[in-house]
């Protein structure tokens, strides 16, 4: 079965420290990978995507993500966390020729 896993329900980071939110996937075919963020009482906002090319993708608000094909991972990173980064983060995968997204369960990021 095709799936996306975010192994950590919650990640706690001190402000100013680097942060990583993990995402691994198990799909057949070429994946298109996405990260979204959800602030309290809001819908999801697109952060970044990997389609092809450079494995390091830069996105909004200083976030970046690294695609690792051998480890089937797409971890979200930021060099220096801000309190305002506190939110719920979702990883998602879309397959070739398919509009549907496969979603991870979400990771709550708390910056203090």
């Amino acid at each position, binding site marked *: 079965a095709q799936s996306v896993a975010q192994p950590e329900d919650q990640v706690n980071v001190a402000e100013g420290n680097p942060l990583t939110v993990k995402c691994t996937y198990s799909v057949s075919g070429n994946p298109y990978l*996405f990260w979204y963020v959800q602030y309290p009482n809001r*819908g*999801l906002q697109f952060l970044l995507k990997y389609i092809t090319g450079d494995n390091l993708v830069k996105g909004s608000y200083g976030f970046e993500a690294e695609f690792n094909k051998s480890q089937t991972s797409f971890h979200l990173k930021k060099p220096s966390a801000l309190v305002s980064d506190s939110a719920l983060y*979702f990883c998602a995968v*879309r397959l070739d020729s398919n*509009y549907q997204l496969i*979603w991870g369960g979400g990771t709550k990021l708390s910056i203090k």
Partner: protein
Amino acid sequence: DVKVTQSSRYLVKRTGEKVFLECVQDMDHENMFWYRQDPGLGLRLIYFSYDVKMKEKGDIPEGYSVSREKKERFSLILESASTNQTSMYLCASSLSASGSSSYNSPLHFGNGTRLTVT
């Protein structure tokens, strides 16, 4: 900026009522989606539409129907609301460009409707 507007932020309905959730997008997107979001379950796709009058079932269509009479509007209908349909409902849209690039298009979400069925 793309704007996806959901008509209600909070809604309280009684069991058995017919409920309409409305969603409008202003960017001429072909694709529109309805998700529900529940703690611990993430996002689950209810229905999506890739064109006017077209609809496709998602992962959890039971108890729901949809209507897309105009390109900018996608309605979710709960035929007879039940307490297990208490949830956050999210509408989204995306561009359908030609070829494979359509699958690269990110989703644009509304702010959600929190529905409580009592």
